[in-house]
C-alpha cells in the first residue's frame, strides 16, 4: 500500500514568514481533497510533496523513503503533478507527442510511451485528437491533455491542482471518473479544490488548510458537518448539505443521491 508521511513539515519563502507550520499527516490510498482559502498553503504543500520546494524543517516520506534525497526529475517516476494551467507545460506540435513526452523522460521506450499515451488519451476522452496541435483545442480539452500527460506516466501518486477549472458538467464527470479509475489502480489521488460539491461527490477524505496548518482532517462527511470551523477557513458546505440544513434535516447529505436514498429508506 502506497503512503506519504508528512512529519513536522515547516516551510517559508522568506525568513520569518512561515507558510506551513509543523504539518503532520499521513496520506494513503483514500482519495484526498485539500481545501482552504487562497493563501492557506495548499499549492506550497503539493509543491513540497512533488519535491519542487524543499522543507525548511521536517520530512516527507514516500513509502518510507525521504523524498528530499531525490531530484524532481527522478521523483517524476513516482509522483505526478498536474498543474492548474495547461499552457504552462504544452510545447509539442501534436497532442500525442505532448502526452508521450513525460513517459519517454522517465525511460519508457517510444513504443511503450505511445501505447500508454493512447490509453491515457482514451481515458480523458481525447481519442482521435492525436495529430491535432494542442493549441487548436479549447482550454478544457488542453486541461485534459495535461491530465493525460501525467496519467500516461503511470506514477504511484497523482496530484491535481484545481482540475475542475474551465470544465463543464461533462468535463467534471470525466475528471471524477479518471480519479476513480486511478484510485481503483491503487494510486494515491490528491487534489487541491475550491468546488465543494465536487469534493463531496468524489473524495473519501478532506483536509482543510488554514494559515499553514490542517484545521480539519477526516472523511468528507465528517469534515463538511463542521460548519462553524469551515466558515473560519472561509469555506462553505456543499449545496445539498446547506439546503437540507435549511429545510431542518439533522442528517448530513453530501449530494442529492444521498438525500434521495435517505428519503426512500424513510418513506
Amino acid at each position, binding site marked *: 500500500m502506497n503512503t506519504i508521511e508528512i512529519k513536522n513539515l515547516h516551510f517559508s519563502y522568506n525568513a520569518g514568514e512561515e507558510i506551513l507550520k509543523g504539518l503532520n499527516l499521513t496520506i494513503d490510498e483514500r482519495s484526498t481533497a485539500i481545501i482552504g482559502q487562497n493563501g492557506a498553503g495548499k499549492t506550497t504543500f503539493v509543491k513540497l510533496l512533488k519535491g519542487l520546494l524543499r522543507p525548511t524543517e521536517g520530512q516527507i516520506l514516500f513509502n518510507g523513503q525521504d523524498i528530499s534525497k531525490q531530484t524532481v526529475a*527522478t521523483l517524476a517516476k513516482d509522483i505526478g503533478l498536474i498543474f492548474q494551467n495547461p499552457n*504552462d507545460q504544452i510545447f509539442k506540435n501534436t497532442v500525442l507527442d505532448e502526452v508521450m513526452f513525460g513517459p519517454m523522460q522517465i525511460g519508457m521506450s517510444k513504443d511503450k510511451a505511445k501505447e500508454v499515451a493512447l490509453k491515457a488519451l482514451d481515458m480523458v476522452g481525447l481519442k482521435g485528437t492525436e495529430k491535432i496541435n494542442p493549441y487548436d483545442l479549447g482550454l478544457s480539452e488542453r486541461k485534459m491533455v495535461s491530465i493525460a500527460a501525467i496519467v500516461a506516466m503511470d506514477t504511484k501518486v497523482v496530484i491535481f491542482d484545481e482540475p475542475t477549472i474551465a470544465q463543464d458538467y461533462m468535463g467534471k464527470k470525466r475528471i471524477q471518473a479518471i480519479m476513480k479509475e486511478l484510485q481503483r489502480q491503487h494510486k494515491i489521488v490528491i487534489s487541491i479544490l475550491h468546488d465543494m460539491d465536487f469534493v463531496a461527490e468524489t473524495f473519501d477524505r478532506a483536509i482543510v488548510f488554514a494559515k499553514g496548518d490542517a484545521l480539519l482532517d477526516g472523511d468528507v462527511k465528517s469534515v463538511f458537518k463542521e460548519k462553524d470551523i469551515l466558515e473560519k477557513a472561509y469555506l462553505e458546505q456543499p449545496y445539498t448539505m446547506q439546503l437540507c440544513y435549511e429545510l431542518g434535516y439533522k442528517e448530513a447529505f453530501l449530494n442529492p443521491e444521498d438525500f434521495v436514498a435517505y428519503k426512500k429508506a424513510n418513506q
Partner: protein
Amino acid sequence: MKSLSLYEDKQSFLNGLTPGCKAFYIIAALVIPAMLGNKLISIGFIVLSILLLTQSKVIRRTLPILAVSGFVLITVIIIQGLFRAGNETVVLDLGPVAFYKEGLIFAADIAINVLNIIFAFCVLVLTTKPSDIIESMVSRGFSPRIGYVFVSLFQLIPQMTERMSTITDAQRSRGMETEGSLLIRMKAFIPLISPVIMSSFIDTKERAIALEVRGFNSKEKKSFLNVFHANAASRPIYWILLIATVASVVWKLVMMFA
C-alpha cells in the same frame, strides 16, 4: 510580483516635478555642455544631479548602475591610458607598463560624459513612475498605442519571469532535467521556451480584446485616471532649462559663423 521599475516614492522635491521637466533636465544636461564644449559644465551637472538625488534619498539606488558602468569605464581608462595613439607624456611608470597623460585625459573626458548621462537619467528614472512618464507623454499627444506598449513592458517582463519559473516546475515534474551540463540545458530549451511564447501570444490576444472592449480605440477625448499634482517649481525650472538650452545652441551657432 517583482517590479521592473527603479522608481521609489520618497515624496521628495524631485518626485514632485513633472516628468516633462525632468526629461528636459536630461536634454539640458547633455546639450548645454556639448554646445559650450566645456567639461566643467558637465562636472557641474554631475554635481547638481548627485545633490538632487541625495536630497531625494535615492542616491543609493544609483550604486548598482554605477557598478556596471564603472567596470566599463575602468576598462576604458586602462586601455586609453596605456595604448591610445598619440600617448607621449608618462604620468605613471609601473615598470613594464606606463600610463600616459594624453590617454588618461581622453578617458577622463569619456568618463565625465558617461557619468553625466547616467546621473541625469537617474534623476528621471529613480524619481518618476513609468506610468506617469507615459501618461504625461500621451496627454501631450503621444500615441496611446505606443504608450501602452511601453507601460505593458513593465508588467509583462516580471510576469514572464514568474511564468518561466512555473513552466520550469511543470517540465521538471514530468521528469525533465533542467540543470546540469550545457547539453542538458540545451535539451531543456525548447520545452521551456515554447510554453512561454505560446502563453505570451494567448495573453497578448486576450489583453488586446480586453482593451478593445473597454474602448481603447475610441476617438473620444480621453480623461486620465491619475492626476499628477506637480510641484509649483516645475514650470519655472522647465523654462529656465529651456532658455539655457536654446541659448547654448544659439551661442554655438554664433561662434560657428562669427
